[in-house]
């Protein structure tokens, strides 16, 4: 499949695609978050009736939670090759949230990874 790269003629086109990138980043993550929540509810119901499936359920949950990695990397590379400013919008959104997270660590006190195994059952992880 030959990917065709969009040529931007005006500033408005660039801004438009940049905004699409920001929206796309949020929409992608929202979809995956909803899938995660849905799967979590499904797994709870399933485990209530059949506790033996816990290993399968935790593997499925983990796989779904890492899908955004694949989706985000794939989308950024795809749009980088086709509609560059969408990719830039996605990257800028990621960087903004990442930097804000680092800033929040000033008052939250991040946990070291050596003890994270014990935190995996906590809510929000």
């Amino acid at each position, binding site marked *: 499949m030959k990917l065709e790269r969009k040529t931007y003629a005006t500033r408005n086109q660039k801004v438009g695609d940049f905004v699409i990138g920001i929206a796309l980043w949020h929409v992608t993550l929202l979809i995956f978050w909803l899938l995660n929540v849905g799967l979590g509810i499904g797994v709870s119901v399933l485990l209530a009736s059949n506790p033996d499936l816990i290993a399968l359920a935790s593997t499925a949950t983990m796989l779904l939670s890492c899908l955004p990695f694949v989706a985000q990397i794939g989308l950024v*590379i795809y749009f*980088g*090759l086709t509609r560059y400013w969408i990719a830039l919008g996605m990257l800028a959104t990621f960087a903004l*949230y990442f930097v804000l997270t680092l800033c929040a*660590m*000033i008052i939250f006190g991040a946990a070291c990874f050596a003890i994270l195994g014990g935190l995996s059952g906590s809510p929000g992880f």
Partner: protein
Amino acid sequence: MHPILFEIGGVPIYAHGLFLVLALLVGTAMLGYEARRRHWPREEVVPITLAAIFGGAIGARLAILFFNGWETAPIVLNFFTIFDPRIGPGSILGGVVGAYIGGYIASRIIGKAGCACDAFAPAMALAMAVGRIGDFLAAEDGIGKPTNLPWGVPAPGVDYLVHPAPLYDSAFNLAWFATLLLLRDHPQMQNGNLLKVGVIGYAAFRFLVEFVRNNPVLVLGLTGQQVFCLALLVAATLYYARQNRNARNACAT
């Protein structure tokens, strides 16, 4: 140690987070300064830097799987936890490699001929020099192994002195930053070579400093970080050996 530096209105200010943000600030400022000095256009600096942040954040997380084991997978592989301030950003080694890969892909996508990414090398060393002070104050990973050396420091939970390993890291990076500044205009340190040398130097130092850190042993008495550094050093050796061979062949023909 001072994991909490002070409080503002009852809100604790954590050393680790504060120095992480300071590292980010000085690193970004240094990158901006170097990019301007090298006349590196904004149209290239911005996308490559954003891609480096993206790759670095993901690489820092994924490397934890290798260093700390599969039991961290439920957190490390959960994309949403990247934005959870209660969890550390991950391994600097994985971050450096991830950032390199991210920046490289972005360079190729924007069709950049050659590499202006050398501006990252001193910025990276300076940022690490600052960030490691936070690790020391937060007593991360128990700071270091026991020592009787005069500069040993007390660590929380033990009644003996330990190596201040994060401070070794910080001191090395400060010296490495100065070295990279001296090398930055050398003709052979252009076109990506300064960044490669920066990464290689840190990998060599990190391999050594791991002997006084508390990271878990992975194989043959070496920690995961040491195996990672060895792999980086081998890859760099092979790369430069190939470059040399190609240069010699070009001269011969």
